[in-house]
């Protein structure tokens, strides 16, 4: 493993991916907001299959996923369907995961990702996570959670 600060690498991967794909700015926060039952949340996750087992999960309010999809597809908000949202979130987590893994692994190390899975999120599970970062996107929270012992910072 390279000398690294996983949090910094993850923040760069998330903010640059969302900015380049959905044209929206995300700001990392130092806090984790309390659970808000009024937010309808979605979660999308992707497994790291190699070189170590892990998972990257995004949790966000549905009403934040709509502008992501709207901007990426150049649609009106009312034209954004659940199917488009699922595909957009799957592609976002896929790209964030690839960027993160490429940046934390040595150049001679290959890695493998699973396929993204999207679904509803009842609550924010953080007990077994290695790292949770909350971002602010236009006043709405957006969480990125890493699971797995391989995501340990070395700096």
């Amino acid at each position, binding site marked *: 493993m390279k000398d690294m600060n996983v949090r910094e690498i993850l923040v760069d991967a998330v903010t640059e*991916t969302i900015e*380049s*794909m959905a044209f929206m700015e995300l700001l990392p926060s130092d806090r984790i907001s309390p659970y808000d039952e009024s937010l309808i949340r979605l979660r999308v996750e992707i497994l790291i299959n190699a070189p170590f087992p892990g998972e990257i999960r995004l949790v966000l309010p549905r009403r934040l996923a709509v502008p992501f999809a709207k901007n*990426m*597809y150049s649609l009106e908000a009312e034209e954004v369907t659940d199917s*488009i949202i699922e*595909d*957009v979130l*799957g*592609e976002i987590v*896929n*790209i964030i*995961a*690839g*960027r993160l*893994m*490429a940046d934390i*692994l040595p*150049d*001679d*190390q*290959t*890695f*493998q*990702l*699973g*396929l993204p899975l999207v679904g509803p999120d009842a609550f924010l599970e953080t007990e077994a996570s290695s790292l949770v970062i909350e971002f602010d996107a236009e006043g709405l929270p957006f969480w990125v959670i890493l699971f797995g012992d391989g995501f340990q910072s070395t700096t």
Partner: protein
Amino acid sequence: MKKIMIVDDSSTSRMFVKRCLQTVLADQGEIEYMEAENGKEALARMKESPADLALIDLNMPVMDGATSLRWMKSSPKLTLIPVVVVTSVNSPANREELLKLGASHVLSKPIAPSKLMPVIHEIFNIQADDSFGF
């Protein structure tokens, strides 16, 4: 007319790739874009109607990009089609493996016209246009 096959299980990714190609090839006449959701579907369609270029994702259900690439390079009908792998799984080691399998180029997602342009120009032997602005 050139035919380009875009293979990705994500419709979002196919849309991004197609938009970039349309930008890069805007002044190259009519282009036929074919799309497939996995390698198996793409191989079947290209055997019926060979493409001039294939852009293939790596992580897909049914048949992934690396397997598709192996099939293409072992098929007399498809072996000469240049394959650009467009993937999020793009470490130097992953890239080297894909080039050994026969990919002509490996590009990282998210794709952008500035990344795609030199690759497409090389494959289609298009002279660079400085007025393009990238």
